[in-house]
C-alpha cells in the first residue's frame, strides 16, 4: 500500500478529531475526539513502522520499525492514564454544576 494513502487517511481522521473538538460543547465528546486524534496518530505510526521495516529489510535490519509500534503502545498507555484522570475531572465538575457543557465554564476570563 502506498504510504501516502495512510498519511492522508490518518491526517483526515486527525482533522476530523480537531473539527470535533471545535464544534462540540460536551466535554466528554471533545475528549473522545481527542482520543480519535490519538488513534489517527497511532495508525500513521504503525504504517510508518511498516514502511521503515520494508526499507530496512533490503539492508537486512529485521528489527527496524519495531520502535514505531512500541511508541504506539506507549501512546495507548498514556491515553489510558489520561482518560482515567480526564473522566475523573469531568465527573467532579458534573458533581458541582450538573453539566458537562464547557461553555458553562466561564468564570475565568479576561
Amino acid at each position, binding site marked *: 500500500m502506498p504510504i501516502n494513502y495512510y498519511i492522508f487517511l490518518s491526517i483526515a481522521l486527525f482533522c476530523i478529531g480537531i473539527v470535533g473538538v471545535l464544534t462540540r460543547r460536551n466535554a466528554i465528546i471533545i475528549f473522545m475526539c481527542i482520543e480519535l486524534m490519538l*488513534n489517527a496518530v497511532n495508525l500513521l505510526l504503525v*504504517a510508518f513502522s511498516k514502511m521503515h521495516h520494508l526499507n530496512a529489510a533490503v539492508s537486512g535490519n529485521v528489527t527496524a520499525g519495531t520502535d514505531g509500534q512500541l511508541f504506539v503502545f506507549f501512546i495507548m498507555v498514556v491515553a489510558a492514564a489520561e482518560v482515567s484522570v480526564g473522566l475523573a475531572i*469531568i465527573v467532579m465538575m458534573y458533581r458541582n454544576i450538573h453539566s458537562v457543557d464547557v461553555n458553562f465554564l466561564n468564570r475565568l476570563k479576561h
Partner: protein
Amino acid sequence: MNITQILFWLLSVMALFGALMVVVSKNPVYSVLWLIVTFFAISGHYILLNAQFLAIVNIIVYAGAIMVLFLFVIMLMNLNKETEPQKNRWLKIAGALAGGCLLLVLVAALRNSEMQGQSAEVNTGDIGLIKNLGKELFSTYVVPFEISSILFISAMVGAVLIGKKE
C-alpha cells in the same frame, strides 16, 4: 484490485465515516458507539499491516476498556440528545471550516512529499508480532516502560484524589 486493497478502502471508508458520525451525532451514546466502530476499523488496518499485537491491544484497551469507561460515565450522567448542549451555528461552521482548511493544507503540503513512491508492507513482515515487540520492549525500551509506571501511579492517585467524594 486485490483483496487487501479492497479491504483497505473498505476499512478506510468505515473509519472515516465512523469518525464523522462521532462528530455529528447528537446523542453522546451514539458518538461513543460510532467511535468504537472507528476503532474497530483502525484495528482492521493494524491487522492489514500485520501488527496483530497492536490490533488486539487496540480492541481490548480502547474499544474495550476506555470506551466502556466513557459509556459508563455518560450513562451515569444520563446524558442524551435532550441534554446535549449545542454550539451556536456560526461557531460550528467556523470550527468545521478551520478543521477542513487544516486538512486541505496538510494534504496539499504532503501530497508530493519525499514519501512519494514509498509504501508500507502489508500483511507480511513480523515486527508486529508479540514476540519481537516483547523482546524490544523489555530490552531496549525497559526504561521508558518502567517510567510509565510513574505516570500510572500519579494518574491513579489523581483519579482517586479527584474522583473521591468527600
